[in-house]
C-alpha cells in the first residue's frame, strides 16, 4: 500500500509538471503572436503631435462648433482638437485621408491602415476591453468612437470627462460623405474633407454611369466559408447589399435579412452568376479552393470562373475605401462595362 501511495504521488507530480509545461507553452506561443501590438505600444512618445500647420489658419475661433453625433448627442468644440484618439479602424482611415493624422495620438489595435497608422500608440487589443488607463494617460481632447464600440465603453469614457464623438455607421455613400465632412469640420480640415468627398463622389458617379442600364446579375457574397455546406453571407440591411445593388447585381441572399448562414443547396438552386468572397489575413479561402468545394461544382459562377475575392477591410470599415470596394464590385459583376 505504501508503495502504491508512493507511486500515485509520483505520478501526480509528473502530471502536475506536465500541466505546468502545457500552460507555459501556450502562454509563450500566445506572447509571440501578441508581440506585434505590444511593440507598437512601446514606441508611442516619438510620434506625438507637433501642432499642425495648415489647420491653424482655418481656426476661425469665433464661436463654438456644435455637432450631433451618431448617438444623437450634441458635442461642442471650442477649438480644433489636437490630441485625438481613434477607437475604430474606419475612424483612423478617415482621419488620415483628410490629413488630420498629425493630431492623432492614439488608436485601437486594429487600426493598421494606412501603414503609417501603425506608428501611433495603440491603446487596446480588443473592442470589448479597451485600456482606459492608457486612454486617460494620452490626455486626449477628442475620442472618436464608432458603431462597433460597446455603448458601455462610450458611457465610461464620457463619465471620465472625455469628449467622445460617435461616428455613425453609414448605410449609403451620402451618409459616408456627410461623416467625412463632419469629421473634417471638427478637426479643422474642412477643405481637405470637401476635396476628398468631391473626388470620391466623382468615382461613385463614374461607376454608376458605367453600369447604367446593365442587365441584373445574380451575386452571392461569402463572408465566411468555414463551413462550406452553410457559408455565412449578408442579406438586406448590409453595406454588401448596397454595393451589389448599386452595380446592378442581385443579391441571392437578400431575403436573409442581415448576416446569417445559408444552406449550400439553396445557393446551388439560386445559382449565382458571380461569387465574391471576403478576403483577409485570417481567411484561407481562394478562388480555386472555393471552386473545388464539394457540391459547388454546378454553380454558374464556378463553371464560368467568376469567383473573386475582395479585401473585407474595404467593406467592413466604413471609410474612404468603400469606394475601392464599389469599383471592385462593379468590375467583377459588370465586367463588360469596364473594357
Amino acid at each position: 500500500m505504501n508503495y502504491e501511495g508512493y507511486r500515485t504521488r509520483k505520478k501526480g507530480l509528473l502530471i502536475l509538471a506536465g500541466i505546468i509545461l502545457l500552460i507555459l507553452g501556450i502562454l509563450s506561443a500566445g506572447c509571440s503572436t501578441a508581440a506585434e501590438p505590444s511593440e507598437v505600444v512601446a514606441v508611442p512618445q516619438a510620434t506625438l503631435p507637433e501642432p499642425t500647420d495648415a489647420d491653424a489658419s482655418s481656426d476661425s475661433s469665433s464661436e463654438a462648433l456644435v455637432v450631433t453625433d451618431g448617438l444623437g448627442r450634441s458635442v461642442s468644440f471650442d477649438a480644433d482638437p489636437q490630441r485625438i484618439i481613434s477607437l475604430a479602424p474606419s475612424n483612423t482611415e478617415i482621419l488620415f485621408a483628410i490629413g488630420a493624422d498629425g493630431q492623432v495620438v492614439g488608436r485601437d489595435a486594429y487600426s493598421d491602415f494606412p501603414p503609417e497608422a501603425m506608428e501611433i500608440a495603440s491603446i487596446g487589443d480588443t473592442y470589448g476591453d479597451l485600456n482606459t488607463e492608457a486612454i486617460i494617460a494620452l490626455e486626449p481632447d477628442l475620442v472618436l468612437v464608432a458603431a462597433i464600440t460597446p455603448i458601455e465603453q462610450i458611457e465610461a469614457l464620457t463619465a471620465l470627462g472625455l469628449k467622445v464623438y460617435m461616428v455613425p455607421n453609414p448605410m449609403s455613400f451620402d451618409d459616408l460623405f456627410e461623416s467625412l465632412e463632419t469629421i473634417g469640420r471638427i478637426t479643422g480640415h474642412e477643405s481637405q474633407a470637401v476635396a476628398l468627398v468631391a473626388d470620391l463622389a466623382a468615382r461613385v458617379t463614374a461607376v454608376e454611369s458605367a453600369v447604367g442600364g446593365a442587365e441584373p446579375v445574380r451575386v452571392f457574397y461569402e463572408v465566411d466559408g468555414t463551413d462550406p455546406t452553410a457559408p455565412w453571407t449578408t442579406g438586406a440591411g448590409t453595406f454588401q447589399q448596397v454595393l451589389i445593388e448599386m452595380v446592378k447585381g442581385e443579391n441571392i441572399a437578400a431575403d436573409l435579412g442581415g448576416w446569417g448562414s445559408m444552406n449550400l443547396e439553396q445557393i446551388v438552386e439560386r445559382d449565382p452568376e458571380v461569387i465574391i468572397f471576403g478576403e483577409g489575413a485570417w481567411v484561407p479561402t481562394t478562388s480555386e479552393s472555393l471552386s473545388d468545394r464539394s457540391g459547388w461544382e454546378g454553380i454558374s459562377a464556378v463553371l464560368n470562373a467568376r469567383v473573386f475575392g475582395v479585401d473585407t477591410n474595404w467593406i467592413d470599415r466604413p471609410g474612404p475605401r468603400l469606394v475601392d470596394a464599389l469599383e471592385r464590385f462593379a468590375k467583377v459583376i459588370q465586367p463588360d462595362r469596364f473594357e
Partner: protein
Amino acid sequence: MKKDRSARWSWSAALLVLLSMALLNIAVGPVSLPFRDVMALLLGKLTSIPGEVNPTFAIILYSIRLPNMVLIALTGMALAGSGAAFQGLFRNPLADPYVIGVASGAGLGAVLAMAASWPADFLGMAVVPAAAFVGAILTVLLVYSIARVGRSTPVTTLILAGVAVSSFATAMTSLIMLLSTEELHRAVNWMVGGFSLGGWTPVLASIPYLAVGLFFLSLLGRPLNVLQFGDDQARQLGLNVERLKITLVIAASMVAATAVSFSGIIAFVGLVVPHVVRLLWGPDYRRLIPLAILMGGAFLLGADVIARVVLAPRALPVGLVTAAVGAPFFLYLLHRAKANVGFW
C-alpha cells in the same frame, strides 16, 4: 414469451424509423425537390438508367444531401451508442459521450490547429478534424491514467478526473481563443456547431473508426449487464472488470471523438437517445446499445431536417435543434414513465 416478441418487434421498429428518417432527410430540404424526382435520381443511380431530371436537382441530391445524410446518421449513431455505453459503465443516468473529456479535448485540439493558421483552404480544413480527434483521444487517455488507483479504476475517480481535466482543457481553449483574436470567429464557429467539410471525404474518413468502435460496443452488452451489479459483485461473478472498462472507454471515446471531429459538439443525443430506448424497450444492454445506435441515427437525421428547413434560407446548427426538441420530448417520456415504473 412476450419478451422475445417485443425484442423482435423492437429491431424492426428501430430499423424502420432509421430508414424512414434517412429517406425524409434526403427528400426534404430548403430547396423542395419533387419526391418523384428524388426517387428517380436514387433509383437511376442504382440502375444507371439516366433519368430526365433537372441537373441542379442531381447536384443537390448527390453532392449535398446524400453525403450530409450519411454523415449525420453516422454521427447520431456514434453519439447515442457511446452515450449508452458510458451510462452503463458509470451506472449513472447523467453520463453522456463527453463525460470524460472527449468534447473539451476535441475543442482544445481544434482551436490549437486553427491558431496555427494553416496555409491552404483544404489542408487547413482537414487538419482541424484530425487535431480534434487527437485532442479528444489524448484527453481521455490522460483522464484514464489519472483515475487509475493501483490496478483498478474506480468509477467516481474516473468521473472526477474527467470533470477536472475537461475544465482545464476548456480553460486552455478559451485562453488560446483570447490570445489569437483573428482566429476567434472560426473557433467560435467550430465550438458552436463544428463545421461540415461537405462531400464524401469526412464520411469515408470516419467509417473505419465508427465501424470498429460501434461493433465492439454492440458486443459488450452482456458484460455491461453484469457490471450493473457493481464492480465487486461483477468481479465475483467472474467478469474481468478492468478489461471491460478500458475496452469500453476506448471504443466509446473513439466513436465519440470521430463524431465530434467531423460534426462538432452536438449536445443531448448521447444523453437522451439511450434513455428513450430504455423507456421503450427496457434496460437490457444487449439490446440497448444496438437499438440506441439505430435510434441515435434516426433522431439526428430528424433534427437535421428541422435545422435545415425551419428558418430557410438561414441554416441552423443541428445541436441547437437536438437540445430544443430533445429536452421536451425527454421530459414527456419521463412524465409517462413515472406513472408506470421507475425509468432507471
